[in-house]
């Protein structure tokens, strides 16, 4: 059909705007009317199929014939995630941390999925990615990326630190040593040569930090001869540590407490094993006798 388009043939509503704008009286197109009707029908079907109509102020509503709920859909989605993780989780449940570390696939899984676990439980003190956090007295919680470990950097030692926790301990020497003695000791330690002064042995430092000043891992005493510092590497900072000690019971004392996560019951065994592997892989983990 060839339409002759003549606007003059169509009646208008009779209103005229802006001198010459008319308004046609036209039936809406059929497809449009069909669309409108279909939309209205859709609403009815939707209200029957899905939960939609509130029935009272107390939170009851029509359940819908489909029985759909947002929470069940979320749970179904989560079960897909659990299914993917399930095969790894089932495997590492009965493995030792060292065995998990020896398994490339599991290590990959743990390093990729451990971020949330670490962020929720460890990062508050140890910082994101284990970079450590500071308070006004210096480093508050140790850096986990380096290779200096007070209590050992093998996978088993790290796992033990997580499950059993750790508590540093150093006496406050304020009344026991003179200011001059403390100054001499602090300077020797800051230079990385604690044994260079006879005071080191005489004052009993060697009892905990070892005859060579390299610390005794079983006690968690710090290695005074390397370049990684638990609290503060400045002479003033070292003097403060000698004076006030660590966990010495005074308000001035430095504090160094790692909570025992097993006793706290917050984490499952598997989670603690995963965290041990995750921390080991930060870059400072040390191979141990397995």
């Amino acid at each position, binding site marked *: 059909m060839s339409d002759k388009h003549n606007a003059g043939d169509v009646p208008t509503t009779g209103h005229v705007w802006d001198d010459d704008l008319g308004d046609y009286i036209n039936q809406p197109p059929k497809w449009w009317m069909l669309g409108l009707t279909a939309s209205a029908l859709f609403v009815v079907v939707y209200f029957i199929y899905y939960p939609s109509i509130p029935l009272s102020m107390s939170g009851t509503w029509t359940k819908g014939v489909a029985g759909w709920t947002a929470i069940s859909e979320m749970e179904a989605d989560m079960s897909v995630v659990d299914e993917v993780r399930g095969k790894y989780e089932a495997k590492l449940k009965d493995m030792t941390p060292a065995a998990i570390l020896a398994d490339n696939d599991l290590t990959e899984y743990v390093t990729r999925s451990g971020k949330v676990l670490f962020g929720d439980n460890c990062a508050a003190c140890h910082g994101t*990615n284990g970079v450590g956090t500071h308070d006004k007295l210096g480093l508050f919680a140790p850096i986990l990326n380096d290779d200096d470990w007070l209590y050992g950097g093998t996978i088993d030692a790290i796992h033990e630190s997580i499950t059993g926790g750790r508590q540093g301990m150093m006496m406050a020497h304020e009344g026991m040593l003179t200011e001059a003695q403390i100054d001499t000791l602090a300077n020797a330690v800051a230079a990385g040569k604690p044994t260079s002064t006879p005071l080191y042995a005489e004052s009993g430092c060697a009892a905990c930090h070892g005859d060579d000043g390299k610390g005794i891992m079983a006690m968690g005493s710090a290695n005074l001869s390397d370049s990684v510092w638990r609290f503060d590497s400045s002479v003033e900072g070292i003097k403060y540590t000698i004076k006030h000690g660590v966990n010495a019971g005074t308000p001035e004392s430095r504090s160094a407490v790692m909570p025992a996560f097993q006793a706290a019951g917050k984490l499952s065994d598997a989670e603690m094993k995963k965290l041990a592997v995750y921390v080991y892989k930060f870059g400072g983990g040390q191979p141990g006798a397995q």
Partner: protein
Amino acid sequence: MEQQQKKEMGEVTTLYHEFETWTVNTGGQTIHAKRMPGFFRTFKDRAQLAMWLPFFFLPYLRWNGRQAILFDVDHNQFHFFNLTVLPQDIWMLSLILLVAAMTLFAVTSVASRVWCGYFCFQTAWTDWFTWLENKIEGNPTARRKLDDAPWTFDKLKKKAIKHLAWALISLLTGISFSIWFVDAFDYWNKLLHLQLPLVGWVVLIMFFFGTYLLAGFLREQTCLWLCPYSRIQGVMTDSQTILPTYDYTRGEPRGKLRRGGEAVAQQGDCIDCFQCVQVCPTGVDIRNGQQLGCITCGLCIDACDVVMDKIGKPRGLIRYASLDELSGKTKKEMYQHPRTLVYIAIILLALGGIVWGLTHMGTMALKVVHERQPLYVLMSDGSVQNKYDFKVLNKMDRDVQIKVSAEGGVANQLIVGADKLPLARHGKSTSFTLFVKAPAKSLGQDVVPIQFRVESVEDPNVFAEYTSKFYGPKR
């Protein structure tokens, strides 16, 4: 009041001086074009088949045990015989599309809508559909009669056969489209067992109905109202472009052929037989000049030539001619057509880019991300350690054992973890973490560049490099 408005509206519409002769094909009546043999009819038939038969059959071609040409959407790969292109190199696709677009433009600027007339899928499928219609329901006159006739068993039978044939082609179209993206034989197997994935069904159904409706019912309306390319191509032509044109100087004044008499002498060659209109698949009258409905398929030229032969006049009353030629201007040469030259220059540039891309695709790609938190770690022996995440993309078809080395960086640096690297899996990116440890003493400045090289243990020509940075404490 009402009178006044009508008058005003009438005035607005009559601003267009063609208004009185405006005939608009809105598809209210189906166009039943006559099929006449001729040069352009043959050319169109062959061009359509040459263009689109590969669409149906090429996916079945096998090469080294797999589909020769496959846009593997499941595995994000494109296979072209021996060549495998991964998504990282897909930028070349944009150049290919650019070449395609510019070729369309260049051809259009020279010879108008060649694509529309002889190659376009809409033209081709519509032509095949109407060919079937012609076979089943008869010639245009018979078809119009059949359309108006009451529903009899005979009409029902003819219509049913026609729609069945259309549906079969539509189905085959949907299947053929799909098997460019998944393995053809696997697809047929799944289809016959009704086990296609949801997306497979959706694509098939969309293409089935798309083909059936567009080629069966919308036909020339697609070209007139739906297709953006027809409009784009319309503005590509100028007075130098050749296109099917009615030679009005020769044809006018038109008039019915009369035997002898003085009138004959004063009449043009056009005998107003309407053959050119009857064969037109979009239902336009070419004698009205160039218009958007014309897809320049040349079928009117065939029709007119037959008539000219019959009445003993020279052929070419309707012919491929430029507006310059018709208005008697001197014909310009190709090199005087800057528009075409610009298109060709762009085509050559894009082709150069594709060639460069194909020859520089490499066998491996490497990305190294330096750990941002912490930037560096001080170790107990006084050294500085940095952490790097490696991503190795192996573009070959086999797994490769790799090794990592570094250039630049710091003197006496050590790559920690380089002794146990995973296998670089083919067609995938493999990631792993390495540490670089260097004595703080050797570190001259805060940040030094370090270039990593990953290479195959067996073949040193298979490698990739990436320059990253090594960070130390601020000094």
